[in-house]
């Protein structure tokens, strides 16, 4: 990789207070506090609002069905909609997203059909969509590993001269993994067009930020890689959108990577099988629920007169339609072929795997099964 040393290296630290464009009460901050970022247009903010409402409805529906035991697991992103969608809506379809298990609503907003997202949470297969079709990688479980994939893909695009960027989400807990460090460092030295969005929701399952790191904020790490670092109010969709947009533009035009910490909160359990009462009190949770990102943007749009009753109706219809699509997808019996187990291990054929496939086929045949079968017990 030819290393370009011309670009000046940042060596400033972010402010203590997270960057905002719209405050708690739904009021835009004065222009002089916007640090050179522009408030997104009403059209953009309306779109983000619409998609946040749709996403929350969808997330609520999945959570409900998971509670009924109809999905094997589901990690909700409720409360993180501004970080998730402020990011994703700033992306172009040709940019790549590298999401985690937490980021289903981001994947949804990228255009992946509900049924394809549910594939892994229901347990049919590990990933339900074709990553190339949506420029969206599988939702990753091994923490922080996806950051390196994003840096690699971004570097490949840069080498090929394609004006795209790779965006990746990572949680506060996962930033403790060695892979996150390696990814930030590789991205810095290779000037890979990558945007790292750290969703600091202040918990890694049960472990609070204070036991995760002594860093004042995670964005303080950026300077150690010579890359720009931003500390953003992760419940302010306008700020997230603005900072991610400018990072994407910089990335696509050769300006290298950016680290963006979105400060938010996980108001739900880690997953449906978690029990948060063991490790945090509900007061803290309530306080953060009160800072709801959707309500904040709603207040702003209302104050701007940009959210009519007709809008609400259409948004609600879209949200209900999304929830319905989800229920429908889940109501369809999964089509599972046990023999598919052997089909994708390698691209090349393997005689020994064929033997194992045939053994299972005859086992299934001898059990009177037709070979194809519904899953579950």
């Amino acid at each position, binding site marked *: 990789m030819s290393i370009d040393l011309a670009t000046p290296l940042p060596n400033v630290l972010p402010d203590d207070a997270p960057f905002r464009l719209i405050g708690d009460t739904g009021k835009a901050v004065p222009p002089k506090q916007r640090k050179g970022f522009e408030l997104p247009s009403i059209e953009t903010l309306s779109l983000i609002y619409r998609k946040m409402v749709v996403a929350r409805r969808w997330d609520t529906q999945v959570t409900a069905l998971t509670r009924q035991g109809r999905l*094997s*697991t589901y990690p909700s992103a409720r409360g993180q909609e501004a970080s998730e969608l402020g990011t994703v809506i700033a992306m172009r379809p040709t940019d790549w997203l590298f999401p985690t*298990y937490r980021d289903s609503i981001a994947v949804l907003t990228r255009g992946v059909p509900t049924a394809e997202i549910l594939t*892994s*949470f*229901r*347990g*049919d*297969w*590990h990933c339900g969509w074709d990553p190339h079709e949506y420029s969206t990688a599988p939702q990753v*479980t*091994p*923490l922080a590993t996806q950051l390196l994939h994003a840096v690699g893909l971004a570097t490949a695009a840069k080498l090929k001269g394609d004006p795209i960027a790779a965006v990746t989400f990572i949680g506060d*807990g*996962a930033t*403790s*993994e*060695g*892979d996150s460090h390696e990814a930030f460092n590789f991205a810095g030295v290779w000037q890979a067009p990558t945007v790292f969005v750290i969703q600091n929701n202040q918990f*890694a*399952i*049960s*472990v609070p930020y204070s*036991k*995760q*790191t002594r860093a004042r904020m995670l964005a303080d790490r950026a300077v150690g890689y010579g890359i720009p670092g931003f500390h953003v109010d992760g419940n302010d969709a306008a700020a997230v959108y603005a900072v991610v947009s400018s990072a994407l533009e910089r990335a696509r035009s050769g300006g290298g990577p950016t680290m963006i910490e979105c400060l938010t909160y996980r108001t739900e359990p880690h997953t449906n099988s978690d*029990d948060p009462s*063991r*490790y945090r009190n509900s007061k803290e949770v309530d306080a953060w629920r009160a800072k709801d990102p959707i309500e904040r943007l709603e207040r702003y749009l209302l104050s701007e007169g940009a959210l009519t009753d007709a809008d609400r109706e259409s948004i609600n219809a879209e949200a209900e339609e999304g929830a319905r699509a989800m229920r429908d997808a889940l109501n369809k019996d*999964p089509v*599972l072929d*046990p023999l*598919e*187990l*052997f089909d994708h*291990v390698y691209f090349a054929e393997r005689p*020994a*795997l064929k033997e*194992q496939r045939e053994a*299972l086929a005859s*086992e*299934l045949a*001898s*059990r009177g099964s037709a070979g194809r079968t519904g*899953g*579950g017990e």
Partner: protein
Amino acid sequence: MAKNSAAAADSATVTMASALNRAMREALSEDSSVVIFGEDVGPLGGVFRITDGLTRDFGENRVWDSPLAESGIIGTAIGMAMYGMRPIVEMQFDAFSYPAFEQVVSHVAKMHNRTRGAVRLPMVIRIPTSGGIGGVEHHSDSSEAYWTHTPGLTVVTPSNPADAYSMLLEAIRSDDPVIFLEPKSRYWMKEKSEGNLEPLPMNRARVVREGTDVTLIAYGPTVSVALETAELGTHEGLSVEVIDLRSLSPFDDETVGASVRKTHRAAVIHEAAQFGGYGAEVAARVTEREFYHLAAPILRITGADTPFPAPLLEKFYLPNPERILDSLSTWQWED
């Protein structure tokens, strides 16, 4: 909680989860150098609640949540062990021990040898292992073959609450580092048989059911599968001996050899993929030592040579009693 106060002797009423918890409580009480740390092992009690209540009862300086980094957990445990502590660490799932692979293979396994015995690393790495609970990707791996191939590691796995209790205590007291694999599908099962188990050192295998026609060699989650197979086998007139290996490294050549010399036929059963799996070692070494006693090749009935499947497909992947019996019928029984 009730499940923690149950006595091990009374093991018919306890789960493996509570037996493990009780072993750690005892170790924490009897030896101030024992500490426990890892991801979520503190107030939450671990994602499987195996360390339930330990922070509350022993304090944050004995049992605590670490940052989320497995290499960091193993690496710092090494340093603590060098300073005379006996750390017990938890890897949340097999696949999440892989970031710590270098620390385990290049240091945990080698420090004692490197220093000609001057440095001991009395540490226990607990890993909830294997599948059977419908876990999503990366939550059902069986990693034993990676560890058992690594000289310097001791690798054990209990299959029932009584063994879980005694083996974990022995592992904690051992001066060698121990990989302790806990079959997560057994955590909450109440076993019927373990009340009358003889205590046995952790490096010995146990004949859990006697038989004369064939030896099923199992460990961890597949012991109960082998026992079910044996039961089913009786209907076909097959007398099946079942061995619970308990210790994967070292391997108890004596107990297994004696059984095979009696039955002349054996099969090894595990969840991990077959190719290069632990069953290969079992088959190879038992054949090496007992070749002239064997009437048939040692079979391996295992997971397929594919990544562990998604939840709804795992039943097709995991060895089950019918498949095991079918496999035994491929032998030439007549010759």
